[in-house]
């Protein structure tokens, strides 16, 4: 279903479809291309990229948002932190719970280290879980690591670091073997040979998959193995600063409890593996992105402050076709296959403006130009986009082609009631991947002793252009290597006295460069979620930095009974189940959303949990069980349906008391003010002659 705002433009586009089908739009010349790209491509926008003024990469260029993050102030005041004692003491500390982090933890444990894994949100909050691509590994007779190497380095425009690529292609088949031994179910033929497909930029059939959700399959197996080995996983605890010792080795980290936002935890670790993921949520030049909510380049900022070198920070990859409608899918990339099958672009007047099989750079620039000139289609959310005419595929190749060739995209739109074989998709250029990151060697070690890194936070493996199916491979290969190297290093390393000297030095350096009024880093949560007020730079400065003190947790906001007393009374007097309306009056809800209520701005969702408690306690339903057959649902709304023609609700208010989503203040009110009436009324009812005598029942039951 397309909303009203888009109907007009859609009608115009459908009107011109026949014309566009016949039309052969010419490819543009090389000169026009370079002008188009120079004027519109995000890489050439004034002020989009600027120079780093301080730190290990001084003089390099990076996107403005990233520069601001890297040159930020620390959240920790080194003068008030007591590092004499620590809360945990481990061999290897792994930061991040995605594919790379979980693999690193497991591999370090295999090599005999005492490991701990910490993560910013829940364990399953990672990009790997969302990843829909496959994993490349050369294992067929006509294929070899050599061809894989050539594909990868050519795809990355020859800027890849040869050592890293070699390690990756050489380890790829053994990674598949390792994952199989963990119990991962890959797509296979009946006789056990692995089924492979073509991927982006591959010259052989080399991409393995697991029914389109390989990322999830890998992470859940790793999770199970982590639990079985008893590796502690600490959730909702982001790292806000690294600790060094007196000879400038990394020696641990300071974490903050994301829920209370005050309680800090110090961990001493002999080695530390950073696997914190990408940086899409920094939203370079406000482009949409497909990354997870927590992809804020935290690890990059932490490592930069300690002095670890980074590389290729300006190599940002954009994809021309990112979804911008429906809202839930904003930023998600659409495969090039859609265009190769024959889907063409159209602006809001239904005109084609570019040949649909140009290179990514040209298409990105053309789409941006079109929207800049006012030919974009405005979505209800206010974003601009361009139609990608998918119904053309059906016209060209016959009905049913989309469902057969592009099942995952088709099904995903189907959940939002959009049939892409009949309705086109709205797209706009979106941020796809940042190729830059921390510089590592083939063992995952950075330029700072004891600090290792793996996954998206590193740079150099993919050069300037990522081939999608190499991403998961990169994470797992270097996760394994970094974990092993970290465990081995932990056996021999001797830590000195813990300090935060590097934070002091950093502050002085910022002052010298005139940057001390910069924002804070790491940011942890995207700007649009904090509204600039929740995370403050003075978190740990204003309050005394008292460690592990049991602070009072912020109380959940509850509705003030005085405000709603009249309407609550009316609800309670009505002869219908009051639970649904009492729930709507409440301010909090024990919903899934509430679990994420780490920032104060998230509104407790008003949707019913559907736990069925109110249905279970209702005396009318218990008396007349046939009423249950009316509906399968067990929500509070369903209770109203069940009791629709009941003569009168008993008004026992048991449903309100049983509901986990009703505020306690309302429950107190009901118990203190209303229950006495209810009990006396029920009492009188028992005395009624019409009602059966309770005592008789009990006597019968006992005999």
């Amino acid at each position: 279903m397309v909303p009203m705002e888009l109907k007009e433009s859609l009608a115009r586009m459908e009107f011109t479809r026949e014309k566009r089908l016949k039309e052969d739009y010419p490819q543009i010349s090389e000169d026009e291309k370079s002008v188009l790209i120079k004027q519109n491509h995000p890489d050439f926008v004034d002020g989009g990229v600027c120079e780093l003024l301080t730190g290990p990469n001084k003089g390099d260029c990076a996107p403005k948002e990233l520069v601001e993050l890297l040159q930020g102030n620390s959240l920790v005041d080194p003068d008030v932190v007591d590092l004499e004692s620590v809360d945990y003491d481990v061999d290897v500390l792994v930061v991040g719970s995605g594919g790379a982090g979980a693999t690193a933890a497991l591999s370090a444990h295999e090599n005999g280290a005492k490991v701990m894994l910490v993560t910013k949100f829940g364990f399953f909050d990672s990009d790997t879980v969302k990843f829909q691509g496959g994993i490349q590994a050369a294992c067929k007779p006509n294929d070899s690591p050599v061809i894989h190497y050539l594909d990868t380095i050519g795809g990355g425009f020859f800027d890849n670091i040869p050592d890293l690529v070699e390690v990756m292609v050489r380890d790829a088949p053994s990674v598949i073997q390792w994952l199989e031994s963990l119990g991962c179910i890959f797509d296979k033929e009946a006789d056990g040979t692995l089924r492979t497909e073509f991927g982006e930029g591959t010259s052989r059939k080399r991409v393995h998959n697991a029914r389109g959700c390989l990322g999830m399959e890998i992470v859940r197996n790793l999770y199970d193995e982590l639990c079985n080995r008893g590796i502690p996983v600490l959730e909702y605890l982001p790292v806000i600063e690294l600790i060094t010792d007196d000879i400038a080795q990394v020696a641990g980290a300071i974490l903050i409890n994301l829920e209370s936002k005050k309680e800090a935890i110090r961990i001493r670790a002999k080695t530390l593996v950073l696997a914190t993921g990408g940086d899409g949520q920094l939203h370079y030049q406000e482009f949409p992105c497909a990354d997870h909510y927590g992809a804020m380049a935290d690890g990059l900022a932490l490592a930069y402050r300690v002095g670890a070198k980074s590389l290729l920070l300006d190599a940002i990859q954009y994809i021309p076709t990112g979804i911008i409608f429906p809202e839930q899918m904003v930023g998600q990339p659409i495969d090039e296959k859609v265009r190769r099958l024959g889907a063409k672009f159209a602006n809001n007047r239904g005109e084609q403006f570019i040949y649909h099989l140009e290179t990514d750079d040209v298409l990105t620039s053309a789409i941006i130009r079109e929207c800049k000139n006012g030919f974009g289609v405005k979505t209800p959310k206010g974003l601009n986009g361009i139609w990608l005419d998918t119904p053309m595929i059906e016209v060209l190749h016959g009905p049913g082609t989309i469902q057969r060739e592009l099942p995952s995209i088709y099904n995903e739109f189907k959940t939002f009631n959009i049939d892409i074989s009949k309705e086109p998709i709205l797209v706009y250029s979106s941020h796809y991947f940042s190729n830059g990151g921390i510089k590592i060697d083939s063992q995952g070690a950075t330029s700072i002793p004891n600090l290792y890194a793996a996954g998206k936070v590193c740079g150099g493996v993919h050069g300037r252009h990522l081939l999608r199916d190499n991403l998961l491979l990169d994470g797992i290969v270097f996760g394994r290597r970094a974990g092993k190297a970290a465990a081995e290093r932990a056996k021999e390393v001797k830590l000195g006295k813990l300090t935060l000297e590097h934070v002091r030095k950093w502050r002085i350096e910022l002052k010298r460069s005139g940057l001390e009024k910069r924002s804070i880093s790491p940011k942890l949560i995207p700007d649009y979620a904090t509204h600039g007020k929740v995370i403050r730079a003075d978190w740990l400065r204003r309050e005394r930095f008292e460690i592990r003190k049991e602070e009072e947790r912020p109380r959940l906001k509850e509705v003030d009974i005085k405000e709603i007393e009249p309407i609550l009374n009316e609800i309670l007097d009505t002869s219908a189940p009051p639970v649904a309306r009492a729930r709507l009056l409440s301010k909090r809800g024990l919903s899934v959303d509430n679990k994420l209520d780490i920032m104060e701005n998230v509104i407790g969702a008003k949707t019913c949990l559907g736990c069925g408690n109110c249905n279970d306690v209702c005396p009318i339903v218990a008396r007349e069980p046939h009423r249950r057959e009316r509906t399968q649902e067990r929500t509070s709304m369903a209770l109203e349906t069940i009791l629709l023609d009941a003569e009168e609700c008993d008004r026992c208010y048991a449903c309100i008391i049983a509901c986990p989503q009703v505020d306690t203040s309302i429950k107190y009110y009901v118990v203190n003010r209303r229950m006495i009436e209810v009990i006396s009324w029920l009492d009188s009812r028992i005395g009624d002659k019409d009602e059966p005598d309770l005592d008789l029942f009990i006597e019968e039951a006992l005999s």
Partner: protein
Amino acid sequence: MMLKREIVLKKKAVYELSQLTPSLKQVLTVYPELLKCQVCNKCTMSCPQDINVMEYISHTLHGEIAEVADKSFNCMMCGLCAERCSGGLAPYHIALLCRRLYGRYLLPPSHDLSDFVAEIEGGRFDKELSELKKMEVKELRRRYNERDIVP
């Protein structure tokens, strides 16, 4: 020490995959509460992925591990089924155990892969790879553009 919530609540059993066998008896020794299923269907109704949870639990009780692996494949480990379960089961952990048993023991092994790994470790491609690593960009670009693409 703060462990994963499920372990603390004893919903997730701890086991060593390499010492298990893919049988019903084994699943029951790891998760004995499987027998407590009350067939209330709360789990199926709560599943956001539209998996028929109760169905695969009954498949487990019949020892059809391959069937469970197939039917539960879209699970995203949210744990809503375990939260609602009136019998105290954790269906998503049971399904994960079955999938791992299936992936490790019941799926036919890929012999070509193990041969290939042995070849790589034997150093079959070492020479070619080290040549490519030292190659100039110009030569590398020529090789890249001239590589044959299997149709």
